[in-house]
């Protein structure tokens, strides 16, 4: 599947201003090092989104970023289980699973049990839970193929599926990660880059509100580097949200476009 609007509309690499500072970084370090897919350090993979991928769900979305392929279905709002206590705000139930063939080694995806609760945390701040009291919305994500940066793709795709299901949200949620490889920050890392990373930063935000809903950092980061990483991610998130918005608008007018 190719991006609908060609390369221009579907890439969300951070703005040229940030790229300028990046080129400095290249200069100082191993310049000969090339990313396996030929991208620049601050260039994202082309993003492709499609809503309405699953017919029987209230809303669904399919996302493809390079080799990372994710499908998210949203069901509900449905009545909360009887055993649960009364709640005057809605509940969100998230589940992330991997197909057995998603990873290079079969069944490796089982290591990602924490993703379900992390997805919940990333999304709950963006959803207006007051709009569906006493009920539950289910968000089921399935990683069809793991090609790196899986979790950011899951989050972005899930927020698109929620929007497709007509669940009220403050803003779309976009997520981007950067890996720290040596002295370089590499955006939207592929699987191979993730396995060699010294540290990683994943930022989830609501770009229109300029609010960070989730931030996860591993590895050792100095403050300037942290600033840089966050700025790159915020910038890329804003652009990613544009692509997601375009996808939503596209389905409203013509199915062809999506």
């Amino acid at each position, binding site marked *: 599947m190719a991006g609908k609007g060609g390369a221009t509309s579907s890439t969300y690499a951070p703005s040229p201003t940030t790229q300028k500072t990046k080129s400095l970084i290249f200069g100082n370090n191993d310049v000969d090092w090339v990313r396996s897919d030929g991208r620049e350090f601050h260039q994202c993979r082309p993003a492709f989104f499609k809503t309405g991928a699953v017919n029987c769900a209230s809303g669904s979305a399919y996302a493809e970023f390079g080799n990372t392929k994710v499908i998210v279905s949203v069901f509900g709002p449905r009545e909360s289980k009887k055993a649960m*206590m009364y*709640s005057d705000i809605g509940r969100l139930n998230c589940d992330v699973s991997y197909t057995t063939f998603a990873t290079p080694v079969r069944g490796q995806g089982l*290591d*990602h*049990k*924490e993703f379900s*609760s*992390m997805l919940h*945390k990333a999304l*709950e*701040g*963006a959803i207006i839970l007051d709009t569906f009291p006493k009920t539950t919305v289910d968000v089921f994500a399935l990683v069809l193929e793991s090609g790196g940066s899986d979790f950011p793709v899951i989050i972005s795709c899930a927020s698109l599926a929620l929007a497709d299901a007509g669940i009220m949200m403050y803003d779309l949620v976009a997520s981007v990660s950067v890996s720290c490889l040596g002295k370089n920050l590499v955006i939207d890392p592929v699987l191979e880059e*993730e*396995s*060699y*990373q*010294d*540290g*990683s930063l994943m930022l989830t*935000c*609501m770009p229109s*509100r*300029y*609010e*960070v*809903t*989730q*931030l*996860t*950092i*591993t*590895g*050792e*980061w*100095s*403050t300037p580097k*942290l*600033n840089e990483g*966050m700025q790159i991610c*915020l910038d890329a998130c804003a652009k990613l949200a544009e692509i997601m918005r375009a996808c939503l608008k596209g389905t409203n007018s013509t199915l062809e476009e999506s």
Partner: protein
Amino acid sequence: MKLIISEMVGLSIGEKHFIQGGIAQDIRSDGRKRLTPRPINVKTGVISQANGSARVRMGATDVIASVKAELGRPTALQPDKGKVFINVDCSPTAAPMFEGRGGEELSAELSVALRHCLLGGKSGSGLSSLLAIVSQWNVFESNCRVKIWVPLFVSGAGIELSSLVVVEGKICWDLYIDGLVVSSDGNLLDALGAAIKAALSNTGIPRVNVAAGASGDEQPEVDVSDEEFLQFDTSKVPVIVTLTKVGKHYIVDATSEEESQMSSAVSISVNRQGHICGLTKRGGAGLDPSIILDMVSVAKTVSEQLINTLDSQIAAAEAGEDES
């Protein structure tokens, strides 16, 4: 689950206002200022069967960490590195909500968080040492809160995983780090982080003598000494500082009452050099990026004091243990 927990704290509207108002005026219900942590009490060597152990108390929060070392085989992917496993257990004896699945959920979240803090990225590769992982857990999360984590071990810091190797590709030490929540009054993650740091500094790994002559695929014979022990240098192990945002302000070392009022919390792991080793946010409310950066710098200041207090407490605990 979260709802149940916040309801279990059982605060009236008046109490909630009292807590929020106190935080706004920089004097909390227990008399602390916003950035004043509770006194920490560290006791090491509490479990004699373990290679190292520590008990950390902060107010009514009480946790135990133990470190056990066993000989194992390194993985094929990383023949020059030892393995570290971290697990946290929340027993229902600490709080009724830990019973059954409630405890499981919390245990899993804490374990993941600490694993991130201690073992490096998800992939666990590419790091010469343990990485601090910042992750998040839901316990006592009422509405939303941001946890800033300072990851525990960062690249180039923490325990050198390569120091756990006995014979490359054949024998290494497997470290099993277990945390137990004995009593919970908020800020579990910070307490567990401190307990693990203390337990690691209390840990002695037996010296191993490898019998010469083994070659090829044979598993070499080893002789584990019961007299000589190696110690870890834990000065680089980061500490975790959680900043809980209540209203417009954020506080350190929140009690469970305060945690029930949070809008978000950020846990930051910081090492002695002041580098961020991990960070995680929890709670639904979004945060402005500039606030997060502000929290990071506050966490650095707070972590400095925390590391110093912890180091002196650990030293005192070790000295006390030697005497007895």
